[in-house]
């Protein structure tokens, strides 16, 4: 009986494939295939119709032609606004990643060195805010940074300033918002890395006469390189395309590419240009995404052995 069922199992497509096929097909169909369609539509022409773009395949005089319209890309190159926006997005993403690292590294370090019994509670306290609504946490800063908001009221009450500081709707507010919402994504991978360090290495360095800061710079920081890269990528890549934070906290002229894409799509209803903007953004991000994937794959393999 058992032999029969085993033989039957060999004949049927193995249970293995039942596990492999659904996630594979889902991700291919809904994550990979759409990029091909974005690429296709970035070569189309915008038109007032449903859907609002032309077809690439055209049949004229029994001739099947593929018409690739390069206008959208030329438009991105010619209009200096787009170039400036890409540069400014990368700059904002880089600076806020650095700020997250400066604030997050000592936090992760302190938690990793804390007593084992409180570590879990501390890391939960770091993660917990990101389980509440992202939108609402950005909204909280409007009330704080406004001209007659909490921060200005507090500083005027202290007598530090007598004119309200103009912070909301500036780049400073955008940086605050980004660091605030993305900080947990920096602290988590750093903590996961730092907590695994062998303390004896630091002790050895002390025994050999190293000062605490020397031990930190020469041992702890190099050992945590993988965590620094993972945390930085987890912050930087999504921030490049961030829309909500510059929209709610930034100035009307805070240039970020996610916002431009949103406007091209929803306000101008120019789907082909929005697609071209997305394709260029993807090309810019392909190297960081590959770096992140490489780290993530290594992390998973490292756990396996």
């Amino acid at each position, binding site marked *: 009986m058992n032999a029969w069922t085993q033989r039957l199992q060999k004949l049927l497509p193995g249970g293995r494939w039942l596990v492999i096929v659904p996630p594979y097909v889902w991700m291919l169909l809904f994550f990979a295939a759409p990029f091909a369609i974005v690429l296709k539509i970035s070569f189309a022409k915008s038109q007032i119709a449903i859907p609002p773009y032309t077809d690439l395949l055209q049949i004229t005089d029994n001739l099947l032609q593929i018409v690739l319209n390069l206008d959208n890309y030329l438009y991105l190159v010619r209009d200096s606004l787009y170039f400036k926006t890409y540069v400014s997005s990368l700059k904002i993403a880089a600076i806020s990643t650095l700020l997250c690292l400066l604030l997050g590294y000592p936090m992760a370090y302190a938690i990793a060195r804390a007593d084992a019994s409180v570590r879990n509670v501390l890391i939960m306290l770091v993660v917990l805010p990101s389980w509440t*609504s992202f939108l609402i946490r950005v909204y909280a800063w409007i009330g704080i940074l406004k001209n007659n908001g909490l921060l200005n009221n507090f500083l005027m009450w202290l007598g530090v300033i007598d004119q309200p500081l103009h912070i909301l709707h500036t780049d400073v507010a955008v940086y605050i918002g980004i660091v605030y919402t993305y900080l947990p994504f920096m602290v988590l991978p750093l903590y996961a890395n730092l907590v695994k360090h062998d303390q004896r290495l630091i002790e050895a360095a002390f025994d050999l006469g190293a000062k605490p800061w020397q031990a930190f710079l020469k041992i702890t920081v190099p050992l945590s390189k993988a965590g620094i890269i993972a945390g930085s990528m987890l912050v930087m890549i999504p921030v490049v395309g961030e829309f909500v934070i510059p929209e709610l906290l930034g100035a009307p002229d805070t240039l970020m590419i996610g916002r431009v894409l949103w406007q091209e799509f929803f306000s101008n209803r120019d789907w082909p240009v929005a697609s071209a903007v997305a394709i260029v953004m993807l090309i810019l991000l392909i190297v960081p995404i590959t770096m992140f994937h490489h780290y993530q794959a290594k992390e998973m393999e490292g756990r396996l052995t």
Partner: protein
Amino acid sequence: MKRLSAPKVSTVWLAVGFVFLYAPMLSLIIYSFNESRLVTVWSGFSVKWYGELMRDEQMLNAAWVSLRVAFYTATTSVVIGTMASLMLTRFARFPGKTLFGGLITAPLVMPEVITGLSLLLLFVSMSDWFGVFGSRGIMTIWIAHVTFCVSFVTVVVSSRLSEVDKSIEEAAMDLGANRAKVFFLITLPMIAPALVAGWLLAFTLSLDNLVVTSFVSGPASTTLPMKVFSSVRLGVSPKINALATIMIGVVFVAAFIGWWWMAREEKKRKLDMQLAAQKG
């Protein structure tokens, strides 16, 4: 005698970080009980904004849409994410494993505007070619949310799966259980906490999503974040503070219960191990 030492720099920094993380949320909670419409001027205690929130039909409808989508999304993501985790941690090489690894990690960092735009263009093209997804709504939002939630669930579940001792599974297999039986009787109970964590994570990610949802939703399906966003764009409103307080409250109570339950299970496990050791 214990020497009093100055607290370490990193400990002070940790405290600063926690103030930074929690002060804004605290300000939201305090001003949700403010009488005045002006969010930042205190004029007396009142719960009237909670009443206003409860009477806002549109807001409640949007919340109901969001809760339903989040429930479907979380459930689907846990099923698909568990399959994906098994593929990555338990299966030897198979054709396309590397590609699949890329497909699973990329959504973790992909900017939302790109994911949203590409999924919308997919739905539009599919309705053009095959006549499906013609009307966008809960169904298309569900598909879009599952697509990025699966990655997060996979990270949570596969890190648990790689901690599980494989020799227990192998022992069951040696005793004649087939793969399916091993999974449902041995592996599943051991990774259950990760499945719960993954489900909750997917639920909150879905409940909170604005950008992807805005691209793929139809005119008849407004979700809670879309409603909140359009109201926040017009400025601060005590009603949103009330909503924020409810959300923060639910998350913290749930987190506390989860923490208490896990601590209790851990204690029980240790006690069981002690008893077993005594008997042996």
